[in-house]
């Protein structure tokens, strides 16, 4: 099985520990605004994880879309629906949820460790869909999306239409009647 170099490994451990800590904080912290700030930090650590996987464009997209746009949306929603008396408490069924999620986590970790993940040869993947691990991925992703034979042109156009529909739907939902 392929192993990453020392630098990527150190980056992985730092960002993984910080990310899991921040995610636990999002769930456990009483104050919803602080939970939102921890969520932004969790997004940042995921961008670092992408960086350790040689996914430079994904890391930048994560910072732009999640830390830039979605976190602003979430913080706006927290401010507009301020409920300081109640904060962000657990509901009645939290003990059952904890048991189920702990069991799911144990099962997932067991399966991930127990499976020997196979690799394939570079010749089995179309040349347009691969790039060396030390090269920049941005232009390669563009070629991969817009390739005539193996590209993702129709999903790309559908995604654009879906974003437009989502924006119009959000405006229609919150405008004054």
């Amino acid at each position, binding site marked *: 099985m392929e192993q990453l170099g020392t630098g990527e490994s150190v980056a992985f451990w730092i960002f993984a520990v910080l990310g899991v800590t921040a995610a636990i904080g999002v769930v456990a912290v009483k104050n919803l605004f602080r939970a939102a700030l921890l969520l932004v930090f969790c997004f940042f650590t995921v961008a670092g994880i*992408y960086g350790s996987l040689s*996914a430079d464009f994904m890391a930048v997209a994560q910072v732009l879309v999640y830390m830039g746009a979605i976190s602003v949306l979430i913080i706006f929603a927290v401010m507009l*629906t301020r409920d300081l008396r109640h904060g962000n408490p657990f509901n009645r069924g939290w003990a059952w949820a904890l048991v189920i*999620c702990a069991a799911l986590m144990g099962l*997932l970790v067991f399966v991930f460790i127990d499976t020997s993940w196979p690799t394939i040869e570079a010749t089995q993947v179309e040349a347009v869909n691969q790039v060396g691990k030390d090269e920049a991925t941005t232009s390669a992703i563009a070629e991969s999306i817009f390739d005539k034979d193996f590209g993702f042109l129709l999903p790309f156009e559908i995604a654009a239409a*879906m*974003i437009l529909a*989502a924006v119009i739907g959000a405006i229609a*939902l*919150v405008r004054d009647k």
Partner: protein
Amino acid sequence: MEVDITHYLVLSGILFSIGLFGALSKHNAVGILMCIEIMLNAANIAVVAFSRFLVEDTVVLTGHVFALFVIVVAAAEAAVGLAIVITLYRNRETVDVEKVDSMKG
């Protein structure tokens, strides 16, 4: 300690379980949406990890494209979901999901 795909998948599974626990055990609708975002990020980590480790010393870009589409859908979901939460707060003065049960049988 050198890391391989197992480490990334275990991290993804742990983050997903934390997000699922939060989504199942919270009163506040905004808190639930935040936990759903954690779950989407966990799934994205697994996708990008597979695209890095499927072929040795090579990045298979199909996984990156897939993760990008997940980010697009997550952005749309956050916009519509938070609009629904704000409408809910305007009409009912609450974001507690247990108090919004008029469709409960």
